[in-house]
C-alpha cells in the first residue's frame, strides 16, 4: 500500500531495511494494516475449524481439547492481532494527515511498537505446536482453568500478552502525544475530525486498562510459578477476583475496538451524503460518555457469579445507561443521511451496513443488560451472536470501509468499484447467514464454547457454518482487490470523493512520503 515517491532528497530507503528501520508514519501504518490483515486470515482460519466441527452434531474433525485451543486463539488473534492493530494502522496513516502534522510525535517508538507485534504473535501461535498444546481456556482465560489446570504453554501466552500490551501502550502514548501537540495552528479540539477525536479517547482508554491486563496476567504467572494464590481459594485467594480484574480491562477493551469505528463511519457517511455530519458536538460528548461508562459496567459480564443483589442492580442500571449515548450516535448518523444527496460507493455500503448491524448488536446488548434475562443468555450462543454483531459488521466492516475510502489516497489508484461492491454483498450476506441464526441457538439453549451439541441445534448450526465459509472466503476477494489497486488502476484525484472534506484530501494522491512539513492553514 505504501508508495515509493522520491520527491524529497530523503525518500524511503530501498529493500527490507526500509521497513525494518522506518520511522515514517505512512510506512508504519501500512505495516500495521498488512499485519492485521494477515492476523485476520489466521484468526479466520481458526474460526473455520470451529465452524467445520460444528457443521454437524458429533465430533468429526478435532479433539475437544484442540477445539478449545481454536476458540481461544481465534478470540485472542482477532482482538489483539486483527482489530486493534488495524485501527492503530489507520491512526498512523490518517491522524497526521487529518491534523496537518508532518509525522507522529514519537516516530522511533512508533517503529518499536509495531515491530514488537510480529514477535508477540509468533510466540503465541507457536504454543499450538508445544507439548500439551496452546491456550485452551477461552480468550477470557478465567482462573483456575488458566492457572492450576492450564497447559504448560500458558507461560508463553502470558509473555505474549505482556508484549502486546507494551506495544498498545506505546502506540497510544504516541497517538495522544501527536494529537495534543502536533495539530496545525488553528485546529482547535472542536475542529478535529471525529476519527481523530474517537482515537484520542480510545488512546486514553488503552493507557488506563492495558496495565490492568498486564497486572492480571502477572498475577497468573505468580500463581503458576511462584506459589502465590491470588486466584486459588485453597490458598486464601479468590477466582472471582480474576474476573473482576479481567473485565475491568475487558469491558473498556470492547469500546477500544468500537470507538475508532465510530470515528471512521462519522467520516464516511457525511462524504457520501454530501452533507456535514449532524450533531458534531453531541458525537464528541456521546463518545466521551461511553468511554466514561465503560469503566463502571464491567461486572455485567459476571451476573451469574453470585454477586450481592446491590452489585447486580448497580451494574444492570449502569449498563442500561450506555444505550443513551449509543442511541445518540445512531440517530446522528441517520440524520446525517436524511436530506442528503446519497451515493453508494463501497465505503458507504460498508458504513450503512455498519449502522444497521451495529444497531442490531446494540439491541441484543440492551437485552443482555437486563440481569434476570441475562441469566438465560449468559454463556450461550446468544452472547456469541451479540458480540459478533458489534465486532464483525461493527469494527471489521468499519475497517473495510476505511480501507476502501482511503485506499485511493494511499496508493494513488482507484479500486475496482464493481469488485468492491461484490465483496460488500458477499460479506453482508455471509455475515448475516453466519451470525443471525446464532441468536436462535442461544435462546433455544445452546451453550458457547462446546465442540458438539444436542440434535435440536443441528439446523441452525449447519446454516451458520455455511455463512462462515461464505464470509471467510469472500475475504480473499478483498485481498485481491487491494493488491490490484496497489498495482495500478484509474488514477485518483487529490480530492478523490466529491463530498470529501478535510486536510487529507488536500495532499496529492498518492500522499507523498512526507506531508505537511509546513503546517497547512486552517479556516
Amino acid at each position, binding site marked *: 500500500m505504501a508508495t515509493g515517491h522520491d520527491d524529497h532528497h530523503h525518500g524511503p530507503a530501498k529493500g527490507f531495511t526500509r521497513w525494518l528501520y522506518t520511522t515514517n508514519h505512512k510506512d508504519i501504518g501500512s505495516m500495521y494494516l498488512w499485519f492485521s490483515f494477515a492476523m485476520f486470515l489466521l484468526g479466520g482460519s481458526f474460526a473455520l475449524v470451529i465452524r467445520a466441527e460444528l457443521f454437524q452434531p458429533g465430533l468429526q474433525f478435532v479433539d475437544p481439547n484442540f477445539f478449545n485451543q481454536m476458540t481461544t486463539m481465534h478470540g485472542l488473534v482477532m482482538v489483539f492481532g486483527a482489530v486493534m492493530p488495524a485501527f492503530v494502522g489507520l491512526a498512523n496513516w490518517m491522524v497526521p494527515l487529518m491534523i496537518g502534522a508532518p509525522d507522529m510525535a514519537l516516530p522511533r517508538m512508533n517503529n518499536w511498537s509495531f515491530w514488537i507485534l510480529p514477535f508477540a504473535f509468533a510466540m503465541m501461535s507457536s504454543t499450538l505446536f508445544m507439548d500439551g498444546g496452546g491456550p485452551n481456556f477461552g480468550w477470557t482465560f478465567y482462573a483456575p482453568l488458566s492457572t492450576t489446570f492450564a497447559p504448560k504453554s500458558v507461560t508463553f501466552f502470558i509473555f505474549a500478552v505482556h508484549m502486546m500490551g507494551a506495544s498498545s501502550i506505546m502506540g497510544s502514548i504516541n497517538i495522544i502525544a501527536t494529537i495534543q501537540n502536533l495539530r496545525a495552528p488553528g485546529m482547535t479540539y472542536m475542529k478535529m475530525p471525529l476519527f481523530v477525536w474517537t482515537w484520542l479517547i480510545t488512546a486514553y482508554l488503552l493507557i488506563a486498562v492495558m496495565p490492568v491486563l498486564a497486572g492480571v496476567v502477572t498475577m497468573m504467572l505468580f500463581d503458576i510459578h511462584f506459589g502465590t494464590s491470588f486466584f486459588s481459594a485453597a490458598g486464601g485467594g479468590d477466582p*472471582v477476583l480474576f474476573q473482576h480484574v479481567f473485565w475491568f480491562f475487558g469491558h473498556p477493551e470492547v469500546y477500544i475496538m468500537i470507538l475508532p469505528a465510530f470515528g471512521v463511519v462519522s467520516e464516511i457517511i457525511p462524504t457520501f451524503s454530501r452533507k456535514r455530519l449532524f450533531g458534531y458536538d453531541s458525537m464528541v460528548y456521546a463518545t466521551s460518555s461511553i468511554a466514561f461508562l465503560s469503566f463502571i459496567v464491567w461486572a455485567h459480564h459476571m451476573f451469574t457469579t453470585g454477586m450481592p443483589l446491590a452489585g447486580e442492580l448497580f451494574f444492570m442500571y449502569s449498563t442500561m445507561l450506555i444505550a*443513551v449515548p449509543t442511541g445518540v450516535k445512531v440517530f446522528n448518523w441517520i440524520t446525517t443521511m436524511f436530506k442528503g*444527496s446519497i451515493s453508494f460507493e463501497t465505503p458507504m455500503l460498508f458504513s450503512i451496513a455498519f449502522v444497521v448491524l451495529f444497531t442490531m448488536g446494540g*439491541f441484543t446488548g440492551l437485552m443482555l443488560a437486563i440481569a*434476570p434475562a441475562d441469566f438465560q443468555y449468559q454463556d450461550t450462543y446468544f452472547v456469541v451472536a451479540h458480540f459478533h454483531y458489534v465486532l464483525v459488521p461493527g469494527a471489521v466492516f468499519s475497517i473495510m470501509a476505511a480501507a476502501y475510502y482511503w485506499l485511493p489516497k494511499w496508493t494513488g489508484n482507484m479500486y475496482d468499484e464493481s469488485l468492491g461492491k461484490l465483496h460488500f454483498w458477499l460479506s453482508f450476506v455471509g455475515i448475516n447467514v453466519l451470525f443471525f441464526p446464532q441468536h436462535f441457538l442461544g435462546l433455544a439453549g445452546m451453550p458457547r464454547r462446546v465442540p458438539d451439541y*444436542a440434535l435440536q441445534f443441528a439446523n441452525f448450526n449447519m446454516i451458520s457454518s455455511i455463512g462462515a465459509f461464505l464470509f471467510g472466503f469472500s475475504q480473499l476477494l478483498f485481498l485481491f482487490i487491494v493488491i490490484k489497486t496497489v498495482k495500478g488502476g484509474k488514477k485518483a484525484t487529490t480530492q478523490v470523493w466529491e463530498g470529501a472534506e478535510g486536510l487529507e484530501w488536500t495532499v496529492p494522491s498518492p500522499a507523498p512520503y512526507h506531508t505537511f512539513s509546513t503546517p497547512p492553514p486552517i479556516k
Partner: protein
Amino acid sequence: MLPSLSVNTITSFFNAVSRRYRRILLVLTLVFGSPALLADWALNMREGITEVSRETYSLHMTIIWICVAIGVVVYGVLVYSLFAYRKSKGAVPAKFNHNTTAEIIWTFIPFVILIAMAIPSTRVLMKIYDTEDAVMDIQITGYQWRWQYKYLSDKGAPVVYFSNLATPAEQYENFAGKVSAEKGENYLLEVDQPLVIPVNKKVRFLLTSADVIHAWWMPDFAIKKDAIPGFMNQAAVIAEKPGIYRGQCAELCGRMHGFMPIVVEVKEQADYDAWFAAKQAAAQAVADMTSKEFNREQLVEMGQTVYTTYCMACHQANGQGLPPTFPALAGSKVANGPIEGQLDVVLHGRKGTAMAAFGTQLSPVDIAAVITYERNSFGNKMGDMATPLQVYQLQQAK
C-alpha cells in the same frame, strides 16, 4: 415464535400429498437435512415451569418488542432516507447539521424507556435472589466433568451421587466419518442419575466446585449460577410441573465442557419420598459392600465400568491416555509398581494437575475395583488386587 416442526407433522404432510410429488419432497428433505434434523427449528427461549422463569420470559419478550419498535422507527427513517435522498435521483443536500430540540428529545426518550424496563427487571431480580425458607437444601458440586448432588438431610444414610453423561462415546465420536451408533433422542442431554426434586416445594441449591469454575444451568427454572471452587453460591426453585428437564454446564471448564449435561426430574411428593428412601437404602448397601469379600475377577469386571465412567475421558479406553497431558496407564510405572503408590494417586489425586482426588468421589468398592482393573488390563499384568476394606481404611486415615 414460529411453531416448531415435528417429525410427525412432516410425515403426515408427506402422506397427504399425491405420489407424484413424493419424489420432489424426498429430494427437498435430503437437501435440507434428514427428517431427524428437520425436527427442530426452535427460535425462542422456553417459558419454563416456575414463576421466576415465566417472569424472566416475559421480561425477555417485553425488551424484544421494545427493540422491535425502536428498530422499526430507526430502520424506517434510514431506509426512507436511502431511497428518497439518492444522488442518482437528483437529491440536493440540505445544509442543516444541528437541531437542539431533536437531540434533546432523542436523548430523553430512551432514558424514559430504560427506566420503564429497569423497574420490572429489579422486581424479578429481587425475587430470584430470595432463597429464604426453602424446605430442603441440595449441594451441587461441579467436577471435571460431572455433577455431584448431595442431599443435606440429617436423617438416615447420606444420599450423595454423581450424575454422569449417559450418551456413549460411540455416538459422539465420528472422527474420519465413522458412525458406529445412531445418535439418540436426548443425545448429550442424558445422564445416568438425574437430580430429583419434589414438585411445588421450595428447594435451595448450594453450588460449589471441586476444580475449575462450572455453571449450573437449567433453562426451565431460569437458573444459571456459577459453581466456583472455594465459594458457595445459592439459588432456589419452586418447580410447578412434574417432568424431566434438561440443561448443561455453561462455563468453559476444560476438555469435556460440552459433555456435562444436567437432568432434573421433578416428581410428585409421594414419588419423591419413595425415590429418596430407595436412594438411602442403596447408600446403606454400598456401605455394607465395603466389608464384603471380592475376588480379582469380580473386581476387574466391576472396575471396567468405573473406568469407563470416571477415567476414560482422560486416560482413554485403551489406557493409552493422551500424552503429554493425560499419561498412559498401559505400561505406566504407577500401575505396574507397588499398589500403595497407585492407591495414593487415585485417592488423593496429583495436586496441580487434572488428576483429581477420587477418594472423596467414589465408594471404596469402586476405587478398589478400578485400581485392580488398571493393574490387570491394557497389557498390565500385575496379578494383584486392592480390597475395599484397604481403601476404606485409607479414606478414614485422611
